């Protein structure tokens, strides 16, 4: 049986019509409506038992108006006619009280929107996944961890999401997507291990295998030894790469550069990273997710952010593009936005060295499987601090020797991407400190670990 739609396209058109009518009554012609909906269910376990289990269905209808070079937004959670009409009149009142912005773009016209590629990112079975389905998968994962004499904690979430942009100039863009995420931390007496995967389809995720991987990391990192802080060769698993490298992509924004707060200021077009580093933004990549249009409905185009170590392109929303008299790349946030735009479908080109071969060819180094609490220390040199967690290993003579106590790093991402000497094939990876990306594992020299914690 087909799963009932969270929000239908006719429902969105009706919401726009209500907003247009309400705006006309106030003498306003330019109206944009963003509609979002989600049904997210999440089964959470710890100490080998399910301890939280939730499902939430939420909608929002956000109305933006343009009045005399002024714009404002009002949002409601209700599709009721009076709620949408009230949001519209509220947006108009806010806009009229605001100050004019000479750089404000008019509403997007269909001719400027482009044609977003058709992407099928909706999996019926995932949308229909029940609490029972998730609980059974969690049970299998718990069993795998228990069999290793450990305890498991983690989540299994399934959900469906809807996004739409419509405006009174005739733009319409719709996106439906499902999502499944499983992550697990296996906890042993004095060590732990972690694994996580995400996909648009639950069938692509194997919780039991992930549980075994986490348990194996916990087993191999038991009785962790302390090594002194210093600069080491580091092997970063894909999740660690995305969590750290992910900290730089907000700077690939025309607005950030115009505001003088991007590390790319005065650096675009110059060699910055190693020649083995190429990074793109590609919403159509088969391992990517998300809508093929941006916050105003512009079709997302492909970007070559870094080519062989040289930063080449940055993202443009309409406002930044208008300021520089060029076309938007389709990466804008819903206006008005302080930060403008950002690439969100990152693909870091991989190489030909498997993770196993990377370890096998390392004389002395540290293998990091997960990073935690990453924050920016220097915005221009992109120095980040953070911790390792849930499986950090000493590698010597081509083998993992033993687990080590967790370390704090203070490391420039620019320098990291200059010092990479091996890349694995890229996979879809999922972390906690940045959004999901397609990334390889990396080995880099001279990674700075500054302190060690007590476990």
């Amino acid at each position, binding site marked *: 049986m087909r799963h009932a739609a969270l929000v239908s396209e006719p429902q969105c058109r009706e919401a726009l019509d209500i907003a247009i009518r309400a705006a006309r009554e106030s003498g306003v012609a330019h109206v944009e409506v963003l509609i979002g909906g989600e049904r*997210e*269910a*999440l*089964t959470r376990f*710890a*100490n080998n*038992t*399910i*301890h939280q*289990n*939730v*499902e*939430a*269905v*939420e909608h*929002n209808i*956000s109305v933006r108006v343009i009045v005399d070079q*002024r*714009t*404002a937004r009002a*949002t*409601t*959670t*209700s599709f009721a006619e009076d709620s949408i009409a009230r949001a519209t009149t509220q*947006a108009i009142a806010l806009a009229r*009280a*605001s*100050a004019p*912005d000479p*750089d404000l773009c008019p509403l997007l016209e269909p001719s400027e929107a482009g044609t977003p590629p058709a992407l099928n990112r909706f999996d019926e079975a995932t949308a229909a996944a029940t*609490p*029972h389905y998730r609980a*059974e998968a969690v*049970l299998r994962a718990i069993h795998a961890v228990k069999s290793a004499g450990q305890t498991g*904690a983690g989540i299994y979430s399934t959900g469906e999401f809807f996004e739409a942009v419509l405006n009174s100039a005739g733009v319409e863009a719709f996106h439906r997507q499902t999502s499944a995420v499983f*992550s697990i931390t296996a906890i042993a007496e004095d060590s732990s291990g972690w694994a996580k995967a995400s996909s648009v389809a639950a069938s692509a995720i194997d919780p039991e295998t992930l549980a075994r991987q986490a348990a194996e990391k916990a087993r191999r990192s038991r009785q962790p030894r302390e090594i002194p*802080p210093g600069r080491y060769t580091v092997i970063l698993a894909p999740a660690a790469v995305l969590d750290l490298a992910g900290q730089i992509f907000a700077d690939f924004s025309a607005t950030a550069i115009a*505001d*003088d*707060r991007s590390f790319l200021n005065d650096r675009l077009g110059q060699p910055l990273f190693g020649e083995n580093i190429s990074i793109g933004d590609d919403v159509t990549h088969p391992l990517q997710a998300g809508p093929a249009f941006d916050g105003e409905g512009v079709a997302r185009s492909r970007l070559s952010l870094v080519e062989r170590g040289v930063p080449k392109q940055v993202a443009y929303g309409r406002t930044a593009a208008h300021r520089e008299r060029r076309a938007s790349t389709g990466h804008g946030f819903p206006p*008005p*936005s*302080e930060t403008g735009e950002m690439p969100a479908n990152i693909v870091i080109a991989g190489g030909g060295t498997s993770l196993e071969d990377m370890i096998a060819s390392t004389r002395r180094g540290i293998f990091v499987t997960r990073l*935690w609490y*990453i*924050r*920016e*220390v220097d*915005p*221009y040199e992109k120095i980040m*601090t953070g*911790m390792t*967690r849930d499986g950090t290993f000493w590698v010597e003579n081509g083998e993992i020797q033993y687990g080590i106590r967790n370390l*704090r790093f203070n490391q420039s991402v620019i320098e990291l991407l200059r010092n990479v000497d091996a890349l694995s094939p890229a996979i879809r990876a999922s972390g*906690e400190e940045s959004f999901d990306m397609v990334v390889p594992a990396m080995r880099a020299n001279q990674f700075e*670990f*500054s*302190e060690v*914690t*007590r476990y």
Partner: protein
Amino acid sequence: MRDAALNALEAALRPGVEYADVRVVGQRERTLGTKNGKPSQVAESESLGLGVRVLAEGCWGFAATDDLSKAGVERAAAQAVAIARASALARIEPVKLAPEEAYQAVWMSPCLIDPFSLSVDTQLGLLLAIDGELRRNPGITLAEAALSLRREHQVFASSIGSVIEQTRTFTGAGYEAYSFRDGELQKRSYPNSFGGQHQLKGWELIDELRLVENAARIAEEAVALHDAPPCPQGRFDLILDSSQLALQIHESIGHPIELDRVLGSEANYAGMSFLTLDQLDHLRYGSQIVNAVCDARLEHGPGLGTFAFDDEGVPAQCIQIIDNGRFTGYMTSRETAAAAGQSRSNGTMRAASWSRMPLIRMTNVSLLPGPHSLDEVFDADHAIYMETNKSWSIDDKRYQFQFGCEIAWEIRGGKRGRMLKNPIYSGITTEFWNACAAIANREHWTLWGVPNCGKGQPEQVIGTGHGASPARFRGIRIGAGSGE
């Protein structure tokens, strides 16, 4: 809202359901921002929905919806029960709840000037005035100012007979001045980073903050940082302003005392805690002058964690966390209190919205004022004084931390000397608090709001309160390199 809550409660009380509670929450929010002389954010939002939590077959189930029709409410209640029953597939021990009384209450937070009663052009006018002051300094390359106003109205009803209605009004404001020069980006924020100061108050907070009056100084400091020498590395006595100390408290006292974290509930995401149960009443957390509380009561102040009842109907309380340096208390819920053998929850369960299940969250976790004057706090031969957080990071058991601040000054013989840029300090939680040598008195104590605390899966971002006054710590590691 009350009817929806009671209808949902009735619908949830099916055979086999041992306990149920419902929260219906209506929220109104206004966000205004300016950037380099223009409005950058002019938005309002309203949100209305309910969350139903049930305990059936010894397990929790939670469902939330924004469909408050009779059918929508009944569907959510039925789904919560179905989810609880699915949870029972992986049950080890049934959930037990510490006992609690039933309450009928209506409570509204004090709000002298309704922030929504002021016109948007007046509010934007304030931000533009700040912006103008900041950008009068030609070294400022980017100026941003923001206001956030929020009112939450919540009805809580539970199967033990409680019906509690609370209305809370929050106001926040702040600004940042950036200066980019020769490949270096410096920033100063006022009155704090994280969007400024946030409290459970009305517009009267804005009048107290003296935003425009401080703008020229903040801009001047942001530009002057370029020419300041880097903060030296090594071990120094460290003096922290109250806003940085508030975040230090948040990360190294507030999070470790969450009993759900201690018991492993957050192991996969936010992490666990070094404060294992055997440490209670034994651990020397800090020096003799360190006293900390977790206090949700209004008498503690108008914090982001101030309320009359928590989100499972337990009255606001004050918990002594650290008593003359000794660790004496966790934050608990009805479930974790029972699991730890305590007779009653101390009332710290909070949810970020109607669509989220309540978790143990910091209320107002504060360092109580000390006995010292400000001169006594600064009375050091050679120390570093740091102000306003810039970066923050701590390990997943809340032990090893590193913080960066926007600005520092060298202190020599108790006097403020040269300005220093890019200051960073780090340490181990218990070593740091045991190095506390002086805490300023109540005259210098501020209840800061941290609006962006994240925890839980799905993640819930919530505001917390932290009172602090400037304090001095002995022999702290300054700098972020791998060498001492």
